[in-house]
């Protein structure tokens, strides 16, 4: 057998932890069993109430098939709503050993009515458990909580803390205030207590602030990019506010925000922190050291250098133990595990990125 064939076979055998899979309900009625009559009626009458101008749709319409892979639509219902199709199309052929569910829709993270948001979070967490994880042992849920309601968030985290079906705590990085602010600290305290990482997946319009420091962009192409700059802002806030000093065991997983920006950002943070450090005396070390210890990054949508090997420099600077593979199934910009990374990796490097780093951060067996 020649080397190329042997490598291809090894790649096919490689088991994957996919850190970003999006489950969706077929209809909102799927949540009804997990909500009280009061909130079912509220949802039917008043709907979700977000901080943007269009009800029930995205203000930046996606470019194809509502932002979904065109081959991911089941017989009925939206992509991501059919477990059998997910198994057939993704989990089985792509060798997914463990898949992290990132339930974006109706999780309460964007809801302005805090009580309704809490009801939605509880419902979405029960729904992940009953409709997904109990049926498919490869999947893990995230404890979805609305970051703007820390009191409820802490109670919900504590209620789910002992359940291994929940691998992490999820809040929106697109918050009302930057996530380093103290109003969010009780959530970090609860996450640290139960030893679960905090997942920060890019998301819509939770806090209502424009997606750039210079206002609202025009095109989806720009809004898509603003997820990357937004994640940079979020990371900087968590560092400069001293969250990592206050919670020395906390772990943050940055999902779908890209990662190639991380080295340049930490270099910039270090440089200007050194000149301005009297302003943030609560930081005892250069920002890059906190980032190296407390942050993990998922790969999709992976940046694609013109020279594929340039990506290896980036991974070297971030740390080979800090990058975790993700597909974003069933969204349009899905990364295929067999094609996503075009640079040549060693088998050991592949094992870390596609599987072992995630197993370590999530404590998977």
């Amino acid at each position, binding site marked *: 057998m020649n080397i190329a064939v042997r490598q291809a076979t090894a790649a096919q055998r490689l088991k994957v932890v996919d850190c970003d899979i999006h489950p969706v309900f077929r209809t909102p009625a799927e949540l009804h069993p997990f909500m009280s009559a009061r909130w079912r009626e509220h949802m039917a009458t008043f709907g979700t109430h977000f901080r943007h101008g269009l009800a029930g749709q995205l203000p930046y319409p996606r470019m194809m098939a509502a932002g979904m892979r065109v081959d991911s639509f089941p017989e009925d219902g939206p992509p991501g709503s059919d477990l059998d199709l997910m198994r057939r199309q993704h989990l089985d052929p792509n060798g997914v050993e463990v898949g992290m569910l990132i339930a974006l829709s109706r999780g309460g993270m964007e809801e302005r009515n805090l009580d309704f948001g809490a009801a939605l979070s509880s419902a979405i967490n029960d729904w992940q458990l009953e409709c997904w994880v109990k049926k498919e042992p490869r999947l893990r849920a995230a404890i979805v909580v609305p970051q703007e309601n820390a009191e409820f968030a802490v109670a919900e985290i504590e209620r789910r803390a002992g359940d291994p079906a929940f691998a992490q705590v999820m809040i929106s990085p697109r918050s009302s205030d930057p996530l380093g602010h103290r109003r969010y600290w009780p959530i970090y305290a609860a996450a640290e207590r139960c030893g679960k990482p905090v997942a920060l997946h890019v998301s819509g319009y939770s806090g209502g602030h424009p997606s750039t*420091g*210079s206002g609202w962009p025009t*095109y989806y192409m720009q809004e898509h990019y603003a997820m990357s700059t937004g994640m940079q802002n*979020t990371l900087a806030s968590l560092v400069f506010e001293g969250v990592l000093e206050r919670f020395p065991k906390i772990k943050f997983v940055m999902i779908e925000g890209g990662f190639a920006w991380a080295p*340049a*950002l930490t270099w910039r943070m270090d440089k200007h922190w050194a000149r301005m450090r009297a302003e943030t005396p609560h930081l005892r070390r250069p920002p890059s050291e906190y980032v190296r210890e407390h942050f993990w990054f998922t790969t999709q949508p992976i*940046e694609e250098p013109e020279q594929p090997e340039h990506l290896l420099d980036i991974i070297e600077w971030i740390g080979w133990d800090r990058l975790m593979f993700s597909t974003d199934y069933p969204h349009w910009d899905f990364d295929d595990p067999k094609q996503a990374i075009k640079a040549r990796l060693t088998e050991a490097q592949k094992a870390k990125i596609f599987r072992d780093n995630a197993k370590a951060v999530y404590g998977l067996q």
Partner: protein
Amino acid sequence: MKLPLEGAIDCDVHPAMPGVPALLPYLDDYWRDQFANRHIDRLPFTLSSYLPSSPLTVRPDWRPASGSPAGDLDTIRRHVLDPFAVRYAICNPLHGAVALFNDDMAAALCGAVNDWTARELLDREPRLRASILVPAQSPELAVREIERKAPDRRFVQVLLLAMGEAPLGRRTNWPIYAAAEKHELAIGIHAGSTYRVAPTYAGWTSYRVEDYVAQSAAFETQLLSLVAEGVFQKFPRLRVVLIESGFTWLPTWLWRTAKTWRGVRAEVPWIDRSPAEIVREHVRFTLQPIDAPPADPHALARTLEHVGSDRLLLFSTDYPHWQFDGDDVLPAGLPGDTMRQLLIDNALETYPRLRDAPTAAGRKRKKSKEAP
């Protein structure tokens, strides 16, 4: 001699801005009365982004015991023009006029700052060139100011801030780009915010250092705005210079944007080639700050290889902002064999007005072969 070549072009220096009393001679009767009657003639009109007492704003050994940093020509000569043996230094006026809500007051102050710059800086020091400060709040008034100052070819650029009310690529701003292109003026986008909106997508930061760090993200989104809206298709001769933007973020921008564009290009059908190509042709970046680890020159060298062009960087000191210590404006990791491009040629290519034949007021060029 602190640079490997004589005659470098420093594309970002910041002489102290005059107070309102020094601007009164350049204001009309109405505005002179207004400033006096409203008791705003002693107010500083300083941008929040560049608080004078902040360490970032003035390097410690460039901070005078009294008076304004970079507050007189002799100081600027002593700190920058002479030791770095520069042929030209481009003054970028950072003035609070651009953050005012009253468009007319902003326009009056911008005009006064530009006239003061011509009289007090350019007339008295032939090595200086300048950017035109414009009231970008009102593209109409901004264009009027560009037209007014354009005949003075010592103004080589139009200055905008990185964070304003709306992304710079929006069509409402296009008259500014049309005027700049017509007059062979570059568009310079400088770090700083008018704070019309929160500096991050998750709202208001707590610390100044965070705001400064966030500038690079703002530049990323502004660059994409200009590209996505088709500014460079509409104005094919336009040059944009990102000033004090940092540039080590650029490879990620090029990679990500080129990839996303392949997926969503139907949304922006006027973009007929990779955004990376458009940027390499139309956009330049000033050298300072160099956001790379000083202890690891390899990281800077690798990043410049990722950037993939020697034509994009324009030498700058960012004087008197604190970006480097001592004479270390060119750290290890910069490519030694393309210094002439970095120090001189890239700027001459970017700013057509710097290629003008020397005037009676200008210093004679030492060697004619320095012209491109």
